[in-house]
């Protein structure tokens, strides 16, 4: 058989679908799909995308195959343990379908490489396992206006949706659903809670189906809708999504702002880490791009004349937050309680480009620490 006959033979069962046809198959062969994360979701999506003849696949993953992956990532085998996932997935998929082009990026998606990598693809599939990369991918796809096929799993439940595809005048993204990343520990990951192996397989294959529908224009992709599935009781639901006011302000508006956003920091910041001690406060206070704000009421003791700062009482912080321009904002109060509230409030209003810290123990503790230092250096 000629290669053309093989091509027809390979895709004959889906080309014979009246809605898809030869035209749909040609669209698939010309399509460029990037799969970020070649784990439970990604590996499952990749197998069906490659099988369906999506002509250009990109695989981003910096992880290696581990034994505890195999219960939910049967794309890999025992012999692959220790090998890079992206490379391994590439050779496995290429063996399945030599007629498509597959690029393996054996690296982590970061603010430095995301825009460049994503911009060369038509559709992005989020198969990641952490919030930092999920928010990074979402924001990059909003910036580049790329359709994003999202899925996430926990234990026995999964979510799927399609973001950044305009329909009826509205295109929602992940931040319209969940505006801010949770703090670490607030939402457990698979390593902590476990996951039934078939679940990411089911959800990942659904992502492949959504991508195929987007490419070929058949059916109704999950645009502006969230699909949830529970593997234990087979309950499925569809939730209507709507644009949320203020979402756009949370997303870096330019490539430059995106590249300066620290998603690891953003998602790795528990309330404890938001608080800094006197030493760290002094270090950050010395930086040019830092401003310091006293959030106490006017006239509260002790007075502070040791460093330059602005005075915005907690109650008025909200209305003035928009005019604060700095890379680092240090807030303090008497004891550290109000300033922690202030830090949370500023983080919500200013979004991800600004780092906000609260002085633990307040100015009282800071003055004590300074006194200790003076005494120690005098001795």
């Amino acid at each position: 058989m000629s290669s053309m006959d093989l091509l027809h033979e390979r895709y004959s069962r889906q080309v014979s679908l009246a809605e898809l046809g030869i035209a749909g198959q040609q669209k698939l062969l010309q399509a460029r799909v990037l799969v970020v994360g070649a784990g439970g979701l990604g590996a499952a999506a990749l197998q069906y995308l490659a099988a369906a003849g999506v002509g250009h696949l990109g695989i981003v993953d910096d992880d290696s195959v581990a034994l505890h992956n195999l219960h939910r990532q049967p794309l890999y085998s025992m012999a692959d343990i220790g090998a890079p996932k992206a490379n391994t997935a590439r050779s496995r998929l290429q063996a399945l379908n030599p007629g498509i082009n597959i690029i393996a990026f054996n690296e982590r998606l970061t603010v430095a490489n995301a825009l460049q990598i994503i911009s060369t693809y038509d559709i992005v599939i989020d198969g990641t396992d952490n919030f930092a990369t999920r928010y990074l991918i979402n924001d990059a796809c909003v910036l580049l206006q790329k359709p994003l096929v999202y899925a996430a799993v926990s234990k026995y439940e999964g979510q799927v949706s399609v973001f950044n595809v305009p329909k009826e005048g509205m295109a929602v993204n992940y931040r319209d659903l969940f505006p801010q990343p949770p703090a670490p520990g607030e939402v457990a990951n698979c390593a902590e809670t476990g996951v039934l192996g078939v679940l990411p397989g089911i959800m990942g294959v659904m992502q492949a189906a959504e991508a195929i529908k987007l490419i070929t224009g058949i059916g109704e992709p999950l645009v502006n809708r969230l699909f949830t599935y529970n593997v234990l009781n087979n309950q499925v639901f569809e939730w209507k999504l709507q644009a949320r006011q203020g979402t756009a302000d949370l997303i870096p508006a330019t490539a430059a702002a995106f590249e300066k956003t620290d998603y690891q920091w953003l998602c790795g910041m528990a309330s404890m880490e938001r608080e800094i001690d006197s030493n760290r406060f002094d270090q950050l206070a010395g930086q040019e791009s830092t401003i310091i704000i006293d959030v106490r009421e006017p006239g509260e003791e002790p007075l502070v004349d040791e460093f330059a700062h602005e005075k915005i009482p907690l109650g008025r912080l909200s209305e003035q937050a928009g005019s604060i321009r700095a890379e680092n904002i240090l807030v303090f109060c008497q004891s550290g309680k109000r300033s922690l509230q202030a830090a949370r409030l500023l983080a919500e209003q200013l979004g991800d480009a600004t780092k906000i810290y609260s002085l633990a123990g307040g100015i009282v503790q800071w003055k004590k620490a300074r006194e200790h230092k003076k005494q120690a250096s005098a001795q």
Partner: protein
Amino acid sequence: MFVEIMVFGQLTEITGSATVALEGAADTDAVLRLLQTRYPRLTGSRYVVAVNKKIITENTKVGNTDAVALLPPFSGG
């Protein structure tokens, strides 16, 4: 007036079941206040609220026939 609330993901570990019935809440803010009083750990949890299968972005009136749901984010992949 009873409102039935469906709970998803890890939130069920806090509520102990996938559905909770509440009495005396006229809007979603009141629903959340009552739920957080009954299940204090909900206060520190992240979730979005849906009324009649639509994710809401502001306080919404609820009545006897309305279905409220709490959906948490998942990170796993």
